[in-house]
C-alpha cells in the first residue's frame, strides 16, 4: 500500500487532441433578464459526434444555454453555429435539432407511433418512409411493440425512451438533452445512462447534455463543461474535471472533498493552523488557499506511528469522532485539529478495526492535495 502511494505521479493529462471538426459552436453567448445575467459570454465548441455535459447546480445557467441553443429562448448577445450554419436568429422549427425534455413532453393525445412520426410529418417525409423510420426508431429504444399505446400507458422510463426516439427519428444535426434522467428512479437512471450513451455512440450524433448530476456527467460524457453563476468555469474530460478541478467550487461540486484553509509558506508547503501539508503545485508564498482532498484517497492507519513520514505523502494524526457504515464503505470523521476530515475505506467482512475515539493516522499522496485560491 505504501509503495503504491509514494510511486503515484501527477496524473498525466493527455493534451486534448481531437481531429474532429467543431459542429456546435457557441460564441460569446449571453442571456440577460433586465439586470440579471443568466449566462455570461459563454464560449463552447462541441466537436462532431462529441458528447458534452453542461454540469452545474440549479440556477447556473446550463438550462438557459440549452434553451438558447434550441431557439426556445432568444440570446441577448453572441452567436450559435450548428454545422457551419449561423442559427442565432432562426426559430426552433428551423434549427434541425432534437430535444429531450426532463418531463418527457410527449403529446398525450397521440399514440407512441404518432408521437415519433410528428417530426417526420413536419419534414414532409413520404408516408411509406415514415412508417419504416418510426419502426426503426422505436426498435432503437427497444419499444418496437409499443407503437399503438398512449404515452400515459407507459412507465416513466419507457416514456423517456419514446421522447428519445421522437428526437432522434428526424436525424437532427445535434441532440440536446435537458436533465433527461432526473425524473427516473435510481435503478432506471443507471440503465438509461448506459442506453443513451450506447445510442449516442452508435449514431455518432453531436450531443449537449444538461445535468446537475456529476455521476451522469462523469460516466456518460466525452467532456464536461462546468458552469457556475452563468459562467463556464472549466471545460475538460471527466478525468481532468475530477482530478484537476480548477476551482474549489468544482472540487466540491464534482465528487466529495475535505476542505482545509491555509496559507502558502513556501513552494509546495502549506500551513494549516499548526499543521504543515505538502502539495505539488502552490501559488505564491503568503497566498491564502483552500486545500481539498478526496475522502477515498486518504489512507487511515489504526495505529499512529506505523506509517513513515515521506516527502511525497502527507501524514496527520487525529481522533475518530464518528464512524458511519454505508454498506460498501465505512466513513470515518477524523478530527485533525484545524478541522474534521472524512475518510472512506471499503468495508470487509470481519471485526471492525477502528471505532469512535481511536487515535489514528491519515496519509495521502501529495498528488491528491488539491490547492485552490478561491474559497466558495
Amino acid at each position, binding site marked *: 500500500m505504501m509503495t503504491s502511494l509514494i510511486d503515484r505521479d501527477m496524473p498525466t493529462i493527455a493534451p486534448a487532441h481531437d481531429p474532429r471538426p467543431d459542429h456546435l459552436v457557441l460564441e460569446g453567448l449571453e442571456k440577460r433578464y433586465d439586470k440579471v445575467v443568466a449566462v455570461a459570454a459563454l464560449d463552447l465548441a462541441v466537436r462532431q459526434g462529441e458528447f458534452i455535459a453542461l454540469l452545474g447546480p440549479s440556477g447556473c445557467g446550463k438550462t438557459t444555454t440549452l434553451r438558447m441553443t434550441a*431557439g426556445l429562448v432568444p440570446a441577448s448577445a453572441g452567436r450559435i453555429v450548428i454545422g457551419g450554419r449561423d442559427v442565432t436568429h432562426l*426559430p426552433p422549427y428551423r434549427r434541425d435539432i432534437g430535444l429531450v425534455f426532463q418531463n418527457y413532453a410527449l403529446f398525450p393525445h397521440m399514440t407512441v407511433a404518432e408521437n415519433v412520426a410528428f417530426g417526420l410529418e413536419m419534414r414532409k417525409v413520404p408516408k411509406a418512409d415514415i412508417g419504416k423510420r418510426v419502426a426503426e426508431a422505436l426498435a432503437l429504444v427497444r419499444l418496437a411493440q409499443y407503437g399503438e399505446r398512449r404515452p400515459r400507458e407507459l412507465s416513466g422510463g419507457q416514456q423517456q425512451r419514446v421522447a428519445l426516439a421522437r428526437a432522434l427519428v428526424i436525424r437532427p444535426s445535434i441532440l440536446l438533452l435537458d436533465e433527461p434522467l432526473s425524473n427516473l428512479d435510481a435503478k432506471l437512471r443507471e440503465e438509461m445512462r448506459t442506453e443513451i450513451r450506447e445510442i449516442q455512440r452508435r449514431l455518432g450524433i453531436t450531443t449537449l447534455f444538461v445535468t446537475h448530476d456529476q455521476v451522469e456527467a462523469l460516466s456518460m460524457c466525452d467532456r464536461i463543461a462546468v458552469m457556475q453563476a452563468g459562467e463556464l468555469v472549466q471545460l475538460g474530460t471527466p478525468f481532468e474535471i475530477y482530478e484537476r478541478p480548477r476551482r474549489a467550487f468544482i472540487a466540491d461540486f464534482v465528487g466529495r472533498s475535505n476542505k482545509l484553509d491555509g496559507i502558502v509558506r513556501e513552494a509546495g508547503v502549506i500551513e494549516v493552523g499548526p499543521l504543515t501539508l505538502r502539495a505539488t503545485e502552490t501559488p505564491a508564498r503568503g497566498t491564502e488557499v483552500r486545500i481539498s482532498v478526496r475522502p477515498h484517497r486518504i489512507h487511515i492507519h489504526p495505529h499512529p506511528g506505523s506509517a513513515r513520514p515521506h516527502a511525497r505523502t502527507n501524514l496527520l494524526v487525529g481522533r475518530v469522532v464518528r464512524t458511519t457504515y454505508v454498506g460498501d464503505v465505512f466513513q470515518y470523521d477524523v478530527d485533525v485539529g484545524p478541522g474534521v476530515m472524512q475518510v472512506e475505506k471499503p468495508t470487509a467482512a470481519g471485526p471492525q478495526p477502528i471505532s469512535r475515539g481511536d487515535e489514528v493516522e491519515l496519509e495521502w499522496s501529495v498528488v491528491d492535495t488539491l490547492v485552490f485560491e478561491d474559497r466558495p
Partner: protein
Amino acid sequence: MDIGRNSQGFTLLVGLLFAFLLAPVLFVFPISFSNDPFLAFPPQSWGFKYFAALPRNAVLMSAFRTSLALAATVTALSLALAVPAAYALVRLDFRGRDWLMSLFTAPLLLPSIVLGLAILLVFVRVDLLATYPGLVIAHLVVTLPYALRVIATALGTLPPAIEDAAATLGAPPFTVFRRVTLPMMMPGIVAASALSFLVSFDEVVISLFIVGPKLSTFPVEMFRYVETRTDPLIAAASVILIVATIGIVLVLERSIGVARALGKASQP
C-alpha cells in the same frame, strides 16, 4: 378536504346538501304530470295534458326556436373569440396582460340587472333593441367571460414544454397550435361550449330589457306566462328543459368527463 371523505357523517352531509339544492327542482316533476287547470301540489288529477299542450302554444314554441338558435350562435361566437383571446392572455407575454384578463372577466362580477340596464341604454341609441344581433351581443357579454375563464384555465394547465417539443420537431407556430395545443385544450373547449350554451339559453334578466313583441326568448316567455297564467304548462316545459340538460351533461361525462372538462388539470 380528504379528511373523512368516506365517513358516514360526510355522506349524510353531502346527501342533505344535494337534497337542499335539488328539492325545488324535483317538485316540478309531479306537478308537470298534473291535469289540473291551476298549479297545486299534490295534483288532483294526473296526466300528460300540458305536455301535449306545449307544442300548440305558438308564442312559447317560437321563443324556444329563437333561444336555441341564439344559444348556438352565441356559443359559436364565444369560442371564436375566447380561444384566440385565451391563447394571447396565457401564452404571450405582454404589458397589461393581467389587467386585460381582469377586464375580460369583469362582467362575471357585475349584477346582471345592472348589465341589462346598461345594455338597454346603449341599444336604444344604436337601434339594436329587440333585434337578433342585439340579443347575440348582449348574451356574448355574459357568456364570453365564462368561456374565456374555462379555456384560459385549460390552457394554463398545459405544460409549455409540450408545445416547445413540437416546435423543436419542426412545427411552425400555427401548426403547433392546430396539432398540439388545440387538441389538448379540447376538454376545456367542450366545457366552454356547454357553459356558453346553457348560460345563453337560460339568460332572463338581460334579455328582459331588450326583447320585444316580435322577438323574445324562451325563459322570458316562460316568465311572462307564469305572471299571467297559473296552469302547470310551465312545469311541463321545465321538466323537458331539465331532462335535456341532464342529457347534455351525461353525454359530456361519457365523452370527456365533466370534472376534466371544468378545468381539473389533465396530466400529460
